[in-house]
């Protein structure tokens, strides 16, 4: 089973990102589960959301403590929150960042998702751009599955912009060395 933790701020779409990722995996014939951290979310506050992906039925209902991948939607969050908490040895942290960032025991990848979001959506909502980055950095789901999920989830105008956001972020994502 693969577990992914999303860090964001209320309003950036972390919960939606977790769900879109799970649904993309579901479209690829896998079992998946997506859920928010059960807190009192409000705009601007740090929020968490989780995705589980497996080849067999997912029965567990515990929270995720040792993620394989971490996705950080907000560039300033790593200063406020321990985004690497519990990450598995050799796991990957995908960051919204203009430059490479190092973490002990984890690989990292980065993209300036805030710019991508502003260019493609016109608002700094980075969730879909960061899904593109995650797909590029980990190969967890295919780009086509993500775009298909976006088309199902959003209205046609919004989905077009978000598909662009995913593609642009996918192209621009760099794996840190």
């Amino acid at each position, binding site marked *: 089973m693969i577990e992914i933790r999303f860090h964001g701020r209320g309003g950036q779409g972390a919960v939606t990102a977790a769900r879109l990722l799970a649904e993309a995996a579901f479209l690829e014939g896998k*079992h998946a589960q*997506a859920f928010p951290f*059960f807190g009192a979310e409000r705009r601007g506050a740090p929020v968490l959301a989780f995705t589980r992906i497996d080849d067999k039925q997912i029965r567990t209902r515990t929270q995720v403590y040792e993620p394989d991948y971490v996705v950080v939607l907000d560039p300033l969050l790593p200063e406020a929150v321990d985004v690497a908490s519990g990450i598995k040895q050799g796991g990957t942290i995908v960051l919204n960042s203009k430059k490479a960032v190092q973490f002990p025991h984890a690989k990292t990848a980065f993209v300036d998702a805030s710019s991508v979001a502003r260019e493609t959506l016109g608002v700094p909502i980075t969730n879909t751009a960061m899904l593109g980055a995650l797909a590029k950095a980990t190969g967890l789901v295919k780009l086509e599955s993500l775009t298909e999920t976006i088309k199902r989830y959003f209205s046609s105008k919004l989905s077009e912009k978000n598909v662009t956001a995913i593609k642009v972020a996918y192209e621009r994502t760099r794996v840190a060395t």
Partner: protein
Amino acid sequence: MKKFITGNEAAAISAKLARVKVISAYPITPQTAIVEKLSEFVANGELDAEYMKVESEHSALSACVGAAATGVRTFTATSSQGLILMSEIMFVASGLRLPIVMTNANRSLSAPLSIWCDQQDSVTVRDSGWIQLYCENNQEIIDSTIQAFRIAEETLLPVMVCFDGYILSHTAEPVDVPKQDEVDKFLPPYKYPYSLDPEHPVTIGAVGVPEYYEEFRYMLQESVLESRDKILEVGRLFGKQFGREYGLIECYRNDDAEVVFVTMGSLSGSIRDIVDEYRDQGERVGFVKVRAFRPFPAKELVEALAHAKAVAVLEKDISLGATGALFLDLSGAFTNAKRAPLLLNFICGLGGRDVTETQIREAAKTAMNAAKTGEVKEVVQWLGLRETLVGLKP
């Protein structure tokens, strides 16, 4: 067709598939998305129903009572404080034999104020004469809610379908959503035999003077007890038509188990994983899920657990001053039994506390130790309790 949906979406879709005619509900976290979705279905014409806005849950259920008495299929949804505010009318609905269906997203009760999951809300209204079904996952929410209408209408009892708030209500996962024509076959148009009709006036809700009241209560008790057969029959018929059969309880790797977990709701999934883990190590651990809490499946549970050495009941509620409510009932079920296992009660997951795999293993180890020694040191234990925070006096 498989869809990727949350528990709340599953609940709303099932009410729509059942073609409910009246919905009255008041928003409360974490079930709000159910009534939002249903009001959307009504507003955009997908569902031909009356959506009654009210000022409280007490009024919501009162409106449902009135609607159900006119003989239409009636639905409501609530959680926590909302359910407790409804509780006065819950006893009215069952006493008047009105087959209302409610989904309850399980959430803790104040104080302290908590919006998070436990099962204290629905467990607290267990004496109200409503049938209570608990769901393990989102598939069970849709299946049990569809079945609930048939059970309610064929027993003339209200039914509540309970599922863990957030843990299921806000979790998206794959669910096989039945087709409308299939659900129509399973749930034919509803006809209430005693509906309010100006042409044929009847009295609903007369006074039960001391010469009659006790008989009414006796008959209600008999009906709730007998509803067990209807739940089984409807669960079988549903299985025949949709390929997923349901009963009062469900046993998992229990045949030769020495130590058996018992719980209800979403914790079942995590427990199954731990049972598999112990089985892989050669330990005879099993699991019994309680789906129907009311009527209480005493006979089935005694049969399923008689062979065990120790039983660990994990539950997200506490009957303050006694033990967990499920444990109380299970202990009662073994009254006068020829053979009974050692019974242990684990209170866990209150107010949204995560029930971790470590906690479940801890309960298993305690129960295994009891099985080995034949002794129970502490009947009730609290999992995940932070001892350092306990001991402050008011």
